[in-house]
């Protein structure tokens, strides 16, 4: 439902209901007051007549049985009817409006009486053997009431209607900045991610504009990251491909030992291409992995053993392992845990001189298991420490794919772990990989 319709329904509905209730109450009140006022008029008129009659009762009673001294029918017309009758029921005097022998038998006090299909309101008093009745027609009363109510309520209704129209226009006018913003956003090109201008906007829209701008900034950063990744990935794949292609062409030009060497080099290029592809694939798998899987578990002892075996199948004399958590279980798939740790070890081995040392220590820290890999290599400067987990960053002309630590970082992000890199106390690099421990240690899957 559009905001305009919603606002109109809410404000208009509330206004109409409120004004309607007031009008209803007003109508009832006016009607009550009118009835009382008209009844008072009947009563007053009856007493006035009674006063007039009783000033000279003999005039009325002495001539009982005879033609009354007064004309029986007064030529008075108007909304009120009046009749004076004797105790015997003779009508002594009557206004022109009343229609004979009907009003007199009314009981004293107020009453309703139907005469010739019309309802009358009557008031009767008995005094000195005379019955004095005043009356008016209900139809006249309701005509009077209706005109009064109309006079009171009509402006009211007109004001309500006018109010709703003003409301319609006002709401539309007030929503214009929103509509302008909508048009601005709707007409943007798909790749236009510059911030929306926030000047000249109503205060209420600013938070919304700010949020949109923050989101645009995030999308912009992501698009840039993806673009850089694509171009970096293309570069990474092109380099080994170039090596393969050039050596195959050399192979065609040469023979004997040179040909064998060219073939070996082409093979090496294929191995590099394969390694780069599998790293890229791992990275995309980790990044696409839908959240932490609670059922995934890996024994720390297995992870350490597999990671060491993978990175140094023939063993590495520089590597020293201190495992304080042989029996711990971590909450992520074994293959990914092994990859994360292996990349950290690979990195240390690549940058540590032949006579250096690499120390892998595993210990428990709260609910996490901490893997610390410290080497005696050249370490990294501040820029290097900040960039080392970026995809395709590598130090100098390192032989790595530039993806290892990025993959470890991605695994950490996926499974609630963390990776920190720092300079060691005696130089070298210290990589700390913290991975969450599984909930129940005894429930290990095969």
């Amino acid at each position: 439902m559009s905001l305009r319709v919603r606002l109109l329904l809410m404000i208009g509905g509330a206004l109409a209901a409120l004004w309607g209730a007031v009008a209803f109450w007003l109508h009832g009140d006016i009607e009550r007051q009118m009835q009382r006022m008209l009844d008072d008029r009947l009563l007053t008129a009856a007493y006035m007549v009674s006063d007039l009659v009783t000033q000279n009762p003999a005039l009325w009673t002495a001539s009982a049985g005879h033609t009354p001294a007064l004309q029986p029918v007064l030529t008075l017309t108007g909304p009120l009817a009046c009749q004076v009758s004797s105790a015997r029921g003779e009508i002594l005097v009557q206004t022109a409006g009343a229609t004979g022998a009907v009003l007199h038998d009314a009981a004293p006090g107020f009453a309703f009486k139907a005469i010739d299909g019309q309802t009358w309101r009557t008031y009767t008093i008995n005094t000195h053997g005379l019955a004095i009745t005043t009356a008016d027609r209900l139809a006249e009363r309701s005509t009077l009431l209706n005109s009064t109510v109309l006079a009171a309520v009509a402006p009211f209704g007109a004001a309500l209607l006018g109010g709703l129209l003003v409301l319609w226009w006002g709401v539309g006018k007030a929503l214009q900045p929103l509509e302008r913003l909508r048009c601005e956003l709707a007409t943007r090109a798909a790749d236009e991610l510059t911030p929306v201008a926030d000047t000249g906007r109503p205060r209420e829209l600013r938070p919304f504009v700010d949020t949109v701008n923050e989101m645009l900034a995030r999308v912009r950063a992501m698009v840039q990251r993806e673009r850089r990744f694509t171009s970096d990935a293309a570069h990474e794949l092109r380099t080994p491909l170039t090596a393969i292609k050039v050596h195959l062409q050399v192979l065609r030009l040469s023979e004997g030992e040179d040909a064998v060497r060219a073939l070996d080099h082409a093979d090496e290029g294929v191995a590099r291409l394969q390694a780069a592809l599998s790293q890229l694939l791992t990275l995309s798998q980790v990044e696409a992995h839908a959240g932490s899987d609670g059922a995934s578990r890996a024994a720390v002892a297995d992870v350490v053993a597999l990671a060491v075996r993978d990175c140094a199948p023939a063993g590495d004399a520089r590597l020293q392992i201190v495992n304080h958590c042989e029996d711990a279980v971590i909450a992520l798939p074994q293959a990914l845990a092994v990859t994360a740790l292996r990349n950290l070890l690979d990195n240390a081995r690549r940058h540590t001189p032949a006579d250096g040392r690499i120390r892998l220590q595993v210990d428990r820290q709260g609910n996490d298991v901490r893997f610390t890999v410290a080497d005696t290599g050249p370490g990294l400067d501040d820029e290097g420490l900040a960039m080392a987990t970026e995809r395709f960053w590598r130090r100098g002309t390192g032989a790595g794919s530039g993806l290892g630590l990025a993959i470890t970082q991605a695994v950490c992000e996926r499974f609630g772990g963390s990776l920190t890199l720092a300079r060691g106390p005696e130089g070298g690099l210290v990589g700390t990989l913290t991975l969450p421990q599984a909930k129940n240690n005894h429930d290990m899957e095969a």
Partner: protein
Amino acid sequence: MRILLVEDDELIAQGVLAGLRAHGMTVDQVATAAHADAALATLACDAIVLDLGLPDEDGLTLLRRLRAKGCATPVLILSARDAVPDKVAGLQCGADDYLLKPFDLSELVARLHALARRAAGRCVDVIERGALRVTPSLGEVTMHGRVVPLPRRELALLSALLNAQGRILSAEQLKSSLYDFNDDIESNAVNVHIHHLRRKLDAGLIETVRGVGYRIALNGSAAP
């Protein structure tokens, strides 16, 4: 033709090295910008093949510095960066050509020959001097319409002398366009090659300028 290859990827460098040598070029390879600077200070090469992603410095920075120093050697950028802005930046920094990795060896060779040809002020790939006709990119030499097969060093020597267009080249200069740093050279190697060329083509083709060096005969003594 002598080429300096600046490429840090060992595997690719070896391939290009072997490929260019197989096409009769003399190639030296360095892996860093610093080494490239050092090599260019002592070596006169006909063209530089430059990779952009060097470990110690960006290739474009190196190129800009070379051009600022007045180095006019043709430069061919060999890069995996395929975006148009990269190519534009490369050419604007002073490169003469831009070739994308992966590339065809034959294309690289043809482009290098084209660069050398333009640097020598020619616009066709054939050098003619009297009855002698040399096509450096094909390594083809004909004398009076008859093909004369020449080994690659003799061909390189002949090309260098022809490209010099009569200027005198010292034995040292000629040697450097025939051999790279690693070649084991005998002191009279150039003499021997000159002798062979005179015998195979025309005795008057190459003049010896005593105490200075050699030049191609200006008066076209190789006329029929």
